[in-house]
């Protein structure tokens, strides 16, 4: 099997299934709750459970999306690009779900309530801005848009760094007291940004020597 077929026929479907996991879990528990309101499905505060689950999934998927380029360079595994759009679009699906639960269940779709909550509470504003930044990225994810935007596409999609950073800050701000829960995300994000500046945005001559390909990445 070539690496390309491994990536598109095995890795991508596996990634698709895994990325769908949280949604399936939430859907299954929502169904249980709908059929037995007294059940403990989704916990005492289902809306909060949905918001925490979708929010954390967004962070994980954004960080995975950012991992694709460094891995391609480091492991000379350029075919991995075939999973990046999927990861990014899943991140957008979850952020949409995250935002919609907030609009519907927290603010009853009242624009006035949403506006006043956003301007009064920095943690909401930060999350809102990160969400808005991801919208143009999802809209320009098609092949046609990639072609049409050309070089500008890459520049536009650097917004993902800012959106991910703001997403992590939003997660930290939501915490009442214990900021330690955000450390893993912040550390991974920092490491990815460093990896990116060393391996992605620099020519191969200035980067570290290329590692030999081992058994594992032959696919």
């Amino acid at each position, binding site marked *: 099997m070539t690496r390309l077929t491994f990536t598109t026929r095995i890795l991508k479907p596996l990634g698709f299934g895994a990325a769908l996991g949280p949604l399936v879990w939430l859907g299954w528990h929502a169904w249980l709750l709908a059929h037995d*309101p*007294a059940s*403990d499905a989704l*916990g*005492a*505060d*289902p*809306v*909060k459970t949905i918001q925490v689950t979708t929010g954390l999934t967004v962070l994980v998927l954004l960080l995975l999306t950012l991992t694709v380029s460094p891995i391609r360079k480091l492991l000379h595994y350029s075919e991995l690009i075939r999973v990046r759009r999927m990861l990014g679009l899943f991140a957008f699906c979850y952020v949409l779900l995250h935002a919609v639960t907030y609009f519907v*269940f*927290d*603010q*009853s779709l009242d624009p006035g*309530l949403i506006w*006043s*909550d956003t301007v*009064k*509470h*920095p*943690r909401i504003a930060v999350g809102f801005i990160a969400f808005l930044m991801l919208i143009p990225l999802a809209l320009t994810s098609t092949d046609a848009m990639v072609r049409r935007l050309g070089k500008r596409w890459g520049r536009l999609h650097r917004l993902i760094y800012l959106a991910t950073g703001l997403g992590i800050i939003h997660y930290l*701000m*939501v915490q*009442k*007291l*214990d900021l330690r829960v955000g450390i893993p995300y912040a550390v991974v994000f920092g490491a990815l940004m460093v990896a990116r500046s060393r391996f992605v945005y620099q020519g191969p001559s200035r980067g570290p020597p290329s590692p030999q390909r081992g058994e594992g990445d032959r696919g």
Partner: protein
Amino acid sequence: MPIHRSPDIRSADITDERLYVSRREFLGSLAGAGVLLSAGERRAIARMLGTADPADKLTPWEVVTGYNNFYEFGTAKDDPAAYAATLRPRPWKVRVEGEVARPADYDLDAILAMGTAEERVYRHRCVEAWSMVVPWLGIPLRTIVSRLEPTSRAKYIEFTTLRDPVQMPGQKSGILPWPYVEGLRLDEAMHPLPLLVTGVYGKPLPNQNGAPLRLVVPWKYGFKGGKSIVKIRFTTRQPANTWNVAAPDEYGFYANVNPAVDHPRWSQARERRLGEFYKRPTLPFNGYGEQVAGLYVGMDLKANF
């Protein structure tokens, strides 16, 4: 010589929980038949129920005892239910000190003998913008305060939670300065509503809810209700309550439920009643304004949040 023995029979044995819940449903359904009752009669029934609004449905036992903020056992909502088994609520002593005529180390039973436990259904509003409706069992705080006889110099009352990292493993982390301290102005403590709670749903208070003795002040945010109380101190100065010490711009001393004063993190205008999906408007003083607003006449409640 024991002054008082805990009753051999629990109230849950006298009235089955289901029956007593249905009693509420019966009264509630009476109240729901609004056309047949005048507003005054509805209010009378609401008073009988111990709530201001007959539409308030009791939050199920599983949620009341499974969704708790009790950082002494961890910061997740299900941590207290999972880890509070290490707490030993008996034997239990409560130290009474400060500006009081009868300072002493009281056995818990001696404290409980000072009054009669009664059932009160109160709305419970957390500063995190969720709420419950809980049938507490407890002794009105003012009954016990009167028996302890504060001196004329006493202006405040301070409640201290147990500090014991062995029984309360969450105290090994320094996320809050332990022990947890809360307080009230003495006239607030002498109001008929605050309850020193020993039980819920007619059963002894589970550890995760603050056994064996906790404070409930229904018109204030939940964090004002100190749990597993080991010390009651009467003071001349305003006590330094833990959350106010930890984050003075977010948590005040008064912490009266107030939809008009936002927390920097959470809007307080609305709340989610656990078990419901949409938020509902939050009432001033958590709906107990008629009874307690008089305590704060002339006070700037935005400055004294």
